[in-house]
């Protein structure tokens, strides 16, 4: 073909075929020695014509690869873009609302009284408005940046910190996340991540409240969690660790939680694992038995959850900077691993290898399931590159997608079907806007946390005005499919001791979704809203659809306009109420028993 053209045309004694061989090796990702690289560079610099041809040859390679990729995975690109655009749009609207809210509130006497500045009204407004706008602009930047990595993430800072109150000041890590949130059918399984900045209107300085806080509901205090703490320090072991690391060996991570039969693997030995124990670099973990479970926490808050029947080895944290420094890595021999990976250095991604491939992660939430013959990767947040060892091919797997590395199988990323979505109020999952909702400890709630609207708010403004000015709400973000009818089940109750029927109603808003029965209370916007009424039917947690007992033979369902990230907001219309969960189900069509905490199929 072009052999005759390229042989020794430069006349410098370097054989043209030799240059082609080196270039072919270089562009195919092969390992050239420094001497070979230098030889190739010299040859290319000496012959501009040859260099252009080879660069163009490389572009033909790109064109061929691009044309092959176009036929395999191009369909998902527009969907991912639509999600990003929506996330950005939501962020902009959110900031606009904050601006509006701040602008409105700075003019109210109450707001002015709550600030230490005792300036005349007009001046106070200006002084408050400027920092508010600066804060809002910063917030927009942060949210847009975060949206680029899988959407706006809830923040532990979304919870007001009042040490004297039962409200939680730290993320709740101690209890095992409900299994429903870890299922492949539920994309909302996001174990705690590093704290994300998400300022709220209430983050404005408030050094001197002008009036006392309203009385708060009495909540049974729960023990302080052992791990993790708000700083980035590794968890402090609550009990003496069975295997104290030697000073010369580095601790890669800490065993945050252990249930059932779990053992630390070091070579051929297996010693029982205990919570709080350090895992040394190079060690592994085996979890067995029907109730086996372990959670591993790295110093940067990257968290791994290991299910029963799982064996992982060769666990390392990020190496100290240096020539051969590598990132977090481990080998997942078999079983199921769910990981919430904090942002890693760009040049040192976390690498999870399996017998069939490897996943390279910069920062995301994912699950890997290794079975004989295949490795399945599910990505809940961010984007992961999966490499298949059998042929060296890679697949980019975005949020809400999965891919299977197995010889001969289709290797394209596909949407994860979602049938069951259990939304639990956890600091990292729910965003609280305004002052209506608080996150509190409640041992009766699954996971020990609940959303609470206290007594003081009593009957709240309702109706169309609330829909137009939704200034205060609790917001969940999760993944769901388009065109699927999800029954809406709310687990809650009215916590009032008298006049219960007057104070027992909340509203739900599905952003980009429609309910099968609209809430006329909200006027034109009704299709996106539903009422959940008669929470007074329960004095402890029970399931409710639109009313309890439901007045319709079929429950209210919600249907989303597009597959991907969705937002559901809870508005307090009548209080006091307490909510422990919202369950969206494509299968549960009848009222679940009060003692059932979520999707049955998800239980292990």
């Amino acid at each position: 073909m072009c052999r005759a053209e390229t042989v020794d045309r430069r006349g410098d004694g370097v054989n043209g075929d030799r240059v082609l061989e080196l270039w072919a090796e270089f562009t195919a990702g092969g390992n050239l020695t420094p001497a070979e690289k230098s030889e190739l560079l010299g040859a290319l610099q000496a012959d501009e014509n040859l260099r252009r041809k080879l660069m163009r040859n490389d572009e033909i390679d790109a064109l061929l690869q691009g044309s092959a990729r176009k036929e395999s995975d191009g369909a998902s690109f527009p969907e991912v873009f639509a999600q990003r655009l929506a996330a950005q749009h939501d962020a902009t609207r959110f900031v606009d609302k904050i601006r509006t809210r701040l602008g409105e509130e700075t003019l109210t006497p109450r707001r002015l009284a709550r600030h230490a500045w005792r300036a005349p009204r007009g001046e106070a407004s200006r002084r408050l408005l400027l920092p508010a706008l600066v804060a809002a602009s910063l917030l927009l930047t942060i949210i847009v940046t975060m949206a680029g990595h899988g959407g706006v993430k809830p923040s532990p800072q979304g919870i007001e910190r009042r040490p004297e109150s039962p409200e939680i000041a730290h993320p709740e890590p101690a209890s095992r996340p409900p299994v429903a949130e870890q299922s492949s059918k539920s994309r909302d399984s996001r174990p705690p991540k590093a704290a994300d900045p998400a300022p709220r209107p209430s983050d404005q300085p408030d050094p001197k409240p002008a009036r006392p806080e309203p009385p708060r509901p009495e909540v049974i205090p729960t023990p302080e969690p052992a791990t993790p703490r708000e700083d980035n320090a590794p968890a402090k072991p609550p009990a003496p660790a069975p295997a104290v690391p030697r000073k010369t060996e580095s601790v890669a991570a800490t065993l945050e939680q252990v249930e059932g039969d779990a053992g630390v693997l070091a070579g051929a030995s297996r010693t029982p694992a205990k919570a709080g124990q350090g895992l040394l670099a190079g060690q592994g973990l085996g979890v067995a038995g029907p109730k086996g479970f372990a959670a591993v926490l790295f110093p940067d808050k990257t968290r791994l959850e290991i299910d029963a029947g799982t064996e992982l080895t060769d666990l390392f944290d990020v190496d100290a900077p240096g020539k051969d420094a590598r990132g977090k890595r481990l080998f997942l021999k078999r079983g199921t691993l769910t990981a919430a990976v904090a942002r890693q250095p760009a040049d040192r991604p976390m690498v999870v290898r399996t017998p069939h491939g490897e996943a390279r992660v910069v920062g995301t939430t994912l699950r890997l399931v290794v079975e004989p013959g295949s490795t399945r990767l599910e990505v809940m947040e961010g984007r992961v590159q999966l490499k298949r060892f059998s042929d060296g091919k890679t697949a980019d797997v975005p949020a809400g997608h999965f891919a299977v590395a197995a010889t001969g199988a289709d290797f394209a990323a596909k949407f994860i079907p979602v049938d069951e979505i259990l939304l639990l109020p956890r600091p990292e999952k729910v965003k609280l806007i305004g002052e209506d909702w608080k996150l509190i400890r409640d041992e009766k709630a699954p996971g020990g946390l609940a959303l609470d609207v206290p007594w003081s708010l009593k009957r709240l403004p309702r109706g169309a005005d609330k829909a137009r000015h939704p200034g205060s709400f609790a917001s969940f973000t999760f993944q769901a499919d388009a065109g699927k009818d999800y029954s809406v089940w709310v687990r809650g109750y009215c916590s009032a001791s008298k006049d219960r029927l007057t104070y027992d109603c909340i509203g739900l808003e599905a952003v980009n979704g429609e309910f099968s029965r609209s809430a006329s209370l909200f006027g034109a916007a009704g299709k996106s809203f539903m009422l959940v009424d008669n929470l007074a039917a329960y004095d402890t947690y029970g399931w409710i659809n639109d009313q309890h007992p439901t007045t319709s033979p079929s429950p209210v369902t919600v249907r989303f306009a597009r597959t991907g990230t969705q937002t559901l907001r809870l508005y307090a219309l009548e209080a006091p109420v307490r909510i422990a969960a919202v369950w969206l189900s494509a299968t549960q069509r009848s009222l679940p028993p009060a003692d059932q905490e979520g999707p049955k199929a998800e239980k292990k």
Partner: protein
Amino acid sequence: MARTAERMEESLWVRQAQEGSEEAFCKLVRLHHDSVRGFLFRFVRNASIMEDLAQETFLSAFRRIRTFREESSLRVWLLGIARLGALKYLREEHQRLSRQSAALETAVADWRIQTLEREGPSDPERELSALRQCLKGLPPSSAHLVAEYYYKGHSLSDLARSYGKRGSAMKMTLLRIREALRECVEQRLSTGEVTA
């Protein structure tokens, strides 16, 4: 007729997008993402980074869509935005590689920057169309190898085993096939022998 209808449809979506319709803009994304991604991948030889740059290209285009004037082609306008993104990335990559003293990689990045600065945005759809025609003209054994490697996803080591060759020989064979394709594509582009 079909082409005219497509243009009219695109023109309608552009106007709707300029009035703020996200839905209309997403339709434009569906029309042009292959071109933008193909163009970016030519210079950014990393699929993950290419996807990110393509997303950024369309987000940037959405923000600026009101400035687009229909006297030029939307695809060319989008490729212009993509080109700026690719140049920015390549310059950063060039700096990073030069800090690592990776002389060959730095030089290759530099040559890609020069190509991009010199040539401006080419039309990947036209190149792809020419490539498809050239693929049909390959000898059957070469066409089979291209299909096995690029479209069916077989690895070089697997192919080397089945062809009874060394891996380096397979790489050379593929390089020579690409060279033939390069000549054919350039010939067709220069003489206008490209059919859609």
